[in-house]
């Protein structure tokens, strides 16, 4: 039986974020009729917050004298995943990421710099291509290029179900802005919904952090509710490494540009809800790893404790870490007092003249906190961290009241595991290596380049992967459409 459709397209892209728009631009360039369905009332999704984009051997790297080979990139990504990543997928990304930079240049992107993300993070490769206007500008350019190529972009329109015939995807059901259901035909569907980070239930069910995910704060747009993964699974698709999520430390109730949150992200003294120190806080240099640490704490919560002298240091000398453009390296955190006026009343931060009072305010055992601080100050005096081996320059005494504590939690940037794909970004069927004809998954909707977590050592990789997987899927789908048409 042949389904009656309200409209038919060559390619339907589900999601108008970084990967979906990249797919749409390429799909129309290849001469396809294209519809992009975006469930939110605006385009961009989390792609709007992208800072930079990974590539290897790009023209932008070459003209700056930067040499990061594809082989280095491949090895770094595979090593970082403990070889749980899909080598085919990593290879496709690494091989084509430089082309992504050129394609984005062709539609108007201007690359201002190629660098690393966090200063003093010596293990980082110089792969991060910073575009003028960052991710939001790239989104704007891709929307214009897609529309000018003839793509129809429908906002407030959610895909709800994939339609299959004889094992291949032939379209989908969508619910439009007026609540009307439509059946849309497509020779290929590209799932680009950005994963499941907006869904607390899916975070609890699928992320590595289980129930602790309930304490996470979602830092992105609200549309990433795992629709693509759910639809793919319902259509027989497999999943892989679904637990991998990209997190970032953030002060409870704050944004990542907040100076109180910036202070809480520093590599000073971190304690858990028991009032005990639990890690080498230099992990703060790598926001992804740092958030992984916090996410595993009791109630997914830690407290960053410092004194007035350190607060003054942050206000005048600036941040000791780099959080990209959100908190640049050495940027003075001079908005702290203004923010603290509110944050001290909401429990985000605490300020006290004694350690005991501070402990009471943040709800940790006072005696434990006093012992922790005494031990910490002892190591500061000795200049050696015998407990967790933090570099001495980050050992700052807690001795000049008033004392401060910032309540830190893990903020979710995006989930980075999900639908299992092959090197052409076709969705692979459950229990088989065979792809489901007509179905693709890209960007954060797809799995394949991560193992446990997001590797900051190859900075900009989720955006680079999103753009690159988008156009690669569109190219493969286009070729399939041409091939199948020739057989008819």
């Amino acid at each position, binding site marked *: 039986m042949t389904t009656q459709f309200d409209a038919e397209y060559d390619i339907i892209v589900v999601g108008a974020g970084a990967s979906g728009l990249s797919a749409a631009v390429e799909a129309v360039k290849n001469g396809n009729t294209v519809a992009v369905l975006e469930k939110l009332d605006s385009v961009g999704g989390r792609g709007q917050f992208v800072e930079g984009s990974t590539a290897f051997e790009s023209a932008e790297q070459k003209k700056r004298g930067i040499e990061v080979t594809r082989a280095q990139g491949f090895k770094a990504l595979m090593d970082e995943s403990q070889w749980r990543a899909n080598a085919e997928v990593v290879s496709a990304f690494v091989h084509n990421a430089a082309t992504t930079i050129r394609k984005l240049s062709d539609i108007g992107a201007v690359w201002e710099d*190629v660098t690393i993300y966090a200063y003093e993070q010596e293990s980082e490769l110089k792969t991060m291509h910073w575009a003028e206007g960052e991710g939001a500008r790239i989104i704007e350019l891709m929307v214009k290029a897609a529309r000018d190529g003839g793509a129809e972009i429908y906002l407030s329109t959610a895909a709800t179900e994939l339609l299959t015939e004889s094992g291949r995807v032939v379209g989908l059901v969508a619910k*439009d802005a007026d609540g009307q259901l439509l059946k849309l035909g497509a020779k290929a569907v590209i799932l680009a919904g950005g994963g499941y980070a907006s869904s607390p239930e899916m975070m609890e069910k699928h992320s590595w952090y289980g129930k602790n995910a309930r304490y996470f704060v979602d830092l992105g747009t609200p549309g990433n509710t795992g629709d693509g993964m759910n639809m793919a699974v319902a259509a027989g698709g497999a999943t892989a490494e679904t637990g991998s999520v990209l997190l970032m430390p953030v002060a409870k109730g704050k944004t990542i540009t907040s100076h109180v949150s910036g202070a809480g992200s520093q590599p000073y003294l971190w304690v858990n809800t028991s009032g005990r120190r639990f890690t080498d806080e230099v992990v703060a240099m790598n926001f992804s790893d740092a958030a992984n640490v916090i996410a595993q704490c009791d109630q997914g919560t830690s407290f960053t404790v410092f004194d007035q002298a350190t607060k003054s240091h942050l206000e005048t000398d600036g941040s000791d870490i780099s959080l990209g453009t959100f908190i640049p390296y050495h940027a003075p955190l001079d908005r702290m007092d203004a923010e603290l006026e509110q944050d001290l009343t909401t429990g985000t931060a605490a300020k006290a003249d004694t350690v005991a009072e501070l402990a009471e305010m943040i709800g940790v055992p006072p005696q434990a906190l006093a012992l922790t601080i005494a031990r910490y100050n002892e190591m500061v005096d000795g200049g050696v961290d015998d407990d967790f081996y933090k570099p001495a320059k980050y050992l700052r005494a807690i001795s000049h009241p008033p004392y401060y504590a910032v309540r830190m939690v893990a903020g979710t940037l995006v989930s980075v595991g999900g639908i299992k794909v092959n090197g052409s970004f076709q969705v692979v069927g459950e229990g088989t290596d065979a792809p489901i004809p007509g179905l693709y998954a890209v960007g954060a909707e797809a799995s394949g380049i991560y193992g446990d977590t997001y590797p900051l050592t190859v900075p900009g990789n989720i955006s680079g992967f999103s753009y690159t997987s988008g156009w690669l899927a569109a190219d493969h789908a286009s070729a399939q459409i041409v091939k199948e048409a020739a057989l008819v």
Partner: protein
Amino acid sequence: MTTVVAFNVAREPAAARILADGSVIWPTRKLPPAEDDHAALSAAVVLADGGELVGVTLGQGDPVWAAARGTTRVLRISDVVVGDDDSATAAALAAAVAEVDGADLVVLGDSEHHPGLAPALAGHLGWPCVLAAAAAARVGEGVEVTRRIGGVEETISARLPVVIAIVAEGEETSPPGMKTMLTARRLPVHDLVATDLALEPVPPLEPVQTRPPSSAAARLFDGDPQQAVGELIKALRSEGVL
């Protein structure tokens, strides 16, 4: 007594892509609706009051966009494109309006970037023009136009025929859904070409030079001299100077 709404007739800077070499790429297929177009269409629907509402547009106009918002048919001059020459655009629109039997009211967006378009259209038609309108309604044999300027709200009575240029006071609140858009594809579009309307060909305005906006300011390299020089060299390399 027929209401006409002109749409997709103002090419706004936000629609352009500017490449690294300074070249400007304008949309070639469909021009995105100008920021006041949705308000103009809403006002036109009110003014048509259930009667015929004819959309007029030029080559890059999207009839479906207008049909989904209430036009009953669209007349498009398919070989005239919207450019920077407002007088040429206005002449083409006037010729299209002349094709609409009984047209006595033309509504269009009051584009901030093309302020001469509505007056030029009115000039070609020989009609009066009310600019900066927020809303309008037919009253008796004429129209009443509300506009808010400088915190003052004024109501203007105008006789027909008249051109009304509408300013949007916000973004479109409830754009039509996909199903409505798809249904709108079936509504009639009457394509004409310039020669059908005896339009004299007008050479397009060709920009002879473009330059980046002045906000691309100079960058200061200060602090430790050795570090500053290093940063300067890096920046010069990044710009391809070295």
